[in-house]
């Protein structure tokens, strides 16, 4: 959500050129998006209209082929450059003219507006997903922290039992069609649950679970996440995905949500 230097310059130029300083002063309380639009409207006579996009497609933290052979490069490229990019375009369309807020802040009430639920959810989920993955040679050196391991044991019995439960939830019989599987902490911060959600819903959205839950780990099981390499062999994709989970990131997600009782920012 950065204003580009060009737009900032235009705003400053337009502000000083306005013949109605009183209305400018009244704008002090306005949000940045509103100022941007006014600046853009003024500048429209000078230059082409400037689109005010709140949300941006984040770069992947690694090259497309970094997760090979577990997740293939063509999938990473299309998944990021096309699917995630479309969610970003569409959430920007859906929030045009509205106050700029971090994407996390749109999640709680997302079920009230279908475009926010679908495209906002899609943007958040994918931004969250890329960060938890890492090349295998890095990922394999990571593991759950003592605190996370303790809560896993408390909630599931053991890490292996958590893993088995996660894989069962990720099976087509459990999430039929498109969706995600999450390992999430409750509001109180004292228990973990595994949750399957349809389409681009996530546990941060009020109404999806009994209470808002805070994800620490998520897995995309839409067919686009695995089709090119695995076709209909979703269980094989799920089983291989563990090899590129970066537990350092999962641990920091866990510490954050337990301490703050809110979802991770992306």
């Amino acid at each position: 959500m950065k204003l580009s230097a060009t737009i900032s310059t235009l705003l400053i130029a337009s502000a000083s050129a306005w013949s109605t300083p009183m209305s400018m002063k009244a704008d002090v309380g306005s949000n940045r998006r509103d100022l941007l639009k006014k600046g853009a409207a003024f500048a429209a006579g000078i230059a082409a209209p400037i689109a005010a996009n709140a949300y941006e497609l984040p770069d992947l933290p690694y090259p497309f082929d970094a997760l090979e052979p577990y997740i293939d490069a063509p999938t990473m490229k299309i998944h990021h450059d096309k699917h995630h990019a479309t969610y970003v375009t569409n959430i920007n369309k859906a929030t045009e003219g509205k106050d700029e807020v971090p994407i996390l802040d749109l999640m709680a009430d997302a079920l009230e507006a279908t475009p926010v639920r679908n495209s906002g959810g899609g943007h958040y989920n994918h931004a969250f997903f890329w960060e938890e993955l890492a090349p295998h040679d890095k990922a394999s050196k990571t593991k759950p922290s003592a605190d996370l391991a303790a809560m896993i044991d408390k909630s599931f019995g053991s890490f292996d039992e958590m893993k088995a439960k996660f894989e069962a939830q990720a099976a087509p019989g459990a999430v039929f069609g498109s969706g995600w599987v999450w390992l999430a902490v409750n509001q109180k911060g004292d228990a973990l649950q595994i949750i399957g959600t349809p389409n681009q819903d996530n546990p941060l959205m009020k109404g999806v679970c009994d209470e808002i839950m805070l994800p620490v780990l998520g897995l995309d099981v839409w067919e686009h996440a695995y089709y090119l390499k695995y076709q209909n062999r979703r269980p094989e994709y799920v089983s291989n995905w563990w090899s590129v989970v970066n537990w350092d990131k999962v641990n920091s997600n866990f510490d954050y949500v337990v301490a703050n009782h809110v979802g991770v920012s992306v």
Partner: protein
Amino acid sequence: MAFELPDLPYAHDALAAKGMSAETLEYHHDLHHKAYVDNGNKLIAGTEWDGKTLEEIISGTYDASSVAQNGIFNNISQLWNHNQFWEMMGPGTSAMPGELEKALVESFGSVDEFKSQFSAAGAGQFGSGWAWLVKNADGSLAVIKTENGVNPLCFNQTALLGCDVWEHSYYIDFRNKRPAYLSNFLDNLVNWENVASRLG
């Protein structure tokens, strides 16, 4: 008695020249459709649904009030959906029978308008599902979109034409470009005689 995977009504490569590759049909029919058959049979074995028809099982297990359907519904509905899907497509060119054209014009204003609504429905079905041309009980035609395996039988409608918009149906040939897949489907793949034959 167990349900069987019907053979494709044509060779796996019969639609390749028209935008649905042999590879797609090999995965879609031989793996996905087959899995719905196998899983469906496994799930109904020994239950009240054992021995019922596909239509009976679909109507009987569909729960309109549920966020997610159960495994029997999911697999059996998808089994039925794909049985129809292969029949609704065909190699070669197919002119639209006059009777169907007349019915489409009556319900939509024009064939183009129907195609436009059908494409919009398919593109607008978020996640997995189907776009359908259906006949209502009163004889009127309509376009609907459904999620996952849900189909016109759930609403006492007759399915005339269906297009699978699960990603597995178009990912190999079109990647994420679902609208291009839909317009290719309508322009090149539909067997309009089969559609017309369902008007009853």
